[in-house]
């Protein structure tokens, strides 16, 4: 017989203690607020304004026109001019620039032989004489930088006479659903809900039981008729409320400040979040029964948090990861919620559409609560 009044006693006690712990109380609001603003602005997968260098061997007006039209894309900023390739390589090594464009001395000849321009001038194109107009040397260690420069390979160029080099016709047409303007923040904000909730929910509850052990309150609690499941449930209820507050902060700021569309129903969002909050809190409780000190519980929280950020699909698409990493990701509640919240918020999906993930979170919570209750012994030995 589980006593609701005992659960209530624990819940109210937690709320009172939380209210008096000003810093923690502040973090409840500040963590989602600051992190959303920070990451909403900072995380951007559309790379722009890369500092690059130029080695212009042609010293021609044509080179200047090309450089101007490349700059106009805003993908790169020409910040350095080098006299030789060797000098440019040193600049790359030092990190002054991320890439260097080398325009050869026969730029004009190469331009006039370029297939697109040649055909417009009525000159028969001779394939064996075609050469690229210039050469990019790229610091390829950052693959995102590399692929950004790579996209310049086929960019159209104007040669000053109004004649353009044009890439070949598209093989396929592509239409972007759900995020037509391709703004990263649209994908980031719902993902941030998962990350922030993972962090705060696990952190709060993982400390919850250890703290009482450290302060000596546990010896008192275990001599009372309080049952482990009552203690567990009583402890997570206040944090469910806090989780929902944080959810509201992130999503409403995302909508208001970053214009992230909220296509799904509020109830669907709440239901999915509730499942995830419960799963995360349960995970925190399990940690709490394992840890001997608050420091240990914090270490374990970080241990869960990092893969939740890196493997859950928040940073990189889940499908692109190797199979082993996908298995690890599947274990983490954050991965399942990441799919659900993005589906519901951005793609107007129902909880039914993501029922596998929903059921998984539900199962995680039930099994987790049982594990935490069983692990929690009302003994000191």
């Amino acid at each position: 017989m589980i006593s609701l009044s005992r659960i209530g006693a624990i819940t109210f006690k937690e709320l009172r203690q939380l209210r008096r712990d000003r810093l923690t109380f502040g973090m409840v609001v500040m963590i989602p607020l600051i992190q959303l603003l920070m990451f909403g602005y900072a995380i951007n997968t559309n790379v722009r304004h890369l500092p690059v260098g130029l080695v212009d061997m042609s010293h021609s007006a044509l080179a200047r026109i090309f450089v101007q039209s490349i700059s106009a894309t805003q993908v790169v900023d020409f910040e350095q001019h080098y006299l030789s390739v060797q000098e440019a390589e040193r600049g790359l090594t030092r990190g002054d620039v991320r890439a260097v464009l080398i325009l050869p001395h026969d730029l004009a000849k190469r331009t006039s032989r370029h297939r697109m321009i040649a055909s417009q001038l009525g000159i028969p194109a001779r394939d064996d004489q075609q050469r690229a107009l210039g050469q990019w040397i790229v610091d390829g260690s950052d693959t995102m930088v590399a692929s950004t420069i790579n996209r310049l390979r086929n960019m159209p160029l104007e040669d000053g006479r109004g004649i353009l080099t044009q890439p070949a016709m598209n093989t396929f047409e592509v239409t972007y659903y759900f995020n037509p303007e391709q703004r990263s923040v649209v994908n980031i904000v719902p993902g941030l809900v998962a990350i922030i909730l993972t962090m705060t929910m696990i952190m709060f509850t993982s400390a919850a039981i250890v703290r009482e052990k450290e302060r000596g309150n546990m010896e008192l609690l275990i001599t009372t008729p309080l049952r482990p499941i009552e203690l567990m449930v009583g402890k997570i209820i206040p944090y469910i409320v806090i989780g929902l507050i944080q959810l509201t902060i992130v999503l409403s700021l995302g909508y208001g400040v970053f214009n992230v569309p909220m296509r799904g129903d509020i109830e669907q969002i709440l239901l999915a979040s509730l499942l995830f909050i419960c799963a995360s809190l349960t995970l925190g409780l399990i940690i709490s029964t394992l840890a001997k000190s608050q420091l240990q519980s914090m270490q374990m929280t970080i241990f869960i948090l990092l893969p939740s950020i890196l493997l859950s699909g928040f940073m990189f698409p889940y499908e692109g990861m190797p199979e082993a990493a996908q298995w690890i990701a599947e274990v983490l509640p954050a991965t399942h919620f990441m799919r659900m919240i993005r589906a519901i918020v951005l793609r107007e999906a129902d909880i039914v559409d993501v029922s596998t993930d929903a059921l998984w979170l539900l199962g995680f919570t039930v099994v987790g609560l049982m594990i935490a209750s069983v692990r929690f012994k009302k003994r000191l030995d």
Partner: protein
Amino acid sequence: MEELIVAEQISRVFGSLRAVDKLDLRVRRGEIYGFIGPNGCGKSTSIRMLTGLLTPSEGSVRVLGLELPRQAEALRTRIGYMTQKFSLFDDLTVAENLKFIAQIYGISGKAAKQRLKEQFDTYGLNQLRQQMAGTLSGGLKQRLALAAATVHRPELLFLDEPTSAVDPENRREFWEKLFDLSDQGASILVSTHYMDEAERCHQLAILEAGQKRASGSPAALMAEMGANVVEVAGTELRQLKQQVIASPEVLSAAQHGTRLRVLITDRIDDPIGWLLQQYPQLEPQQLHPVRPSLEDVFVSSTGAGARQ
């Protein structure tokens, strides 16, 4: 009389340490039973085994007819336990703490209000209801802890060194409360390292290194001490102490102001005559036989005294 606690040959081993070694214990209803012993003698470990918090490595425990630790849950509502370290919540007020404990014991609504008021009155906490428990003085903390441990009117109360951080006046008051509880029918097991507190108990067990050295009522213990006490008055007592302590017949010698209290084993029939014979510098008028105190009992049954 009914035996509330029956512990038979209980031991508890932590790694290579035998914290409690083959302890036998019988506590009857209505008694205030004292555990006395130095720090680390196994008092807390024993209490934890008797409350079902620790599983004995050997031996059996029955408390209020329940077998521990198997039936520990059934025992919870019938006992009160006051931990050695203050274990209520520092960041809750006095009233909030007490209300919380009442709720945990299933006392709510009107009954809780009534019970809390009684406890505030009994333990003089009325003025402090809104004060944070963490900011209370040592004595007040103990009063609050006792109020919390008795909020559900337990039949049996376990108190683990309840007065170790309390000044003498508050200790005296605290013991008055214990006698009130005893009068109301509660049985109490209390551990302490203060002799004056031990003397107030109905029954005592002297513990050392996890073993029971002696037990019984304070009066009986003093009567059956196995040593006689002689007080030596005079000067140069420090040197005399060094001399007498060297004899195997002397269990201990302790200076109290201008007198030296010497415990002499009862194998010596005439302790005063023996002293005069051994130490010719002493004059008969310097020596007086005195009634043994509990401290003498403690000294004679533990440490060097017990090994003789």
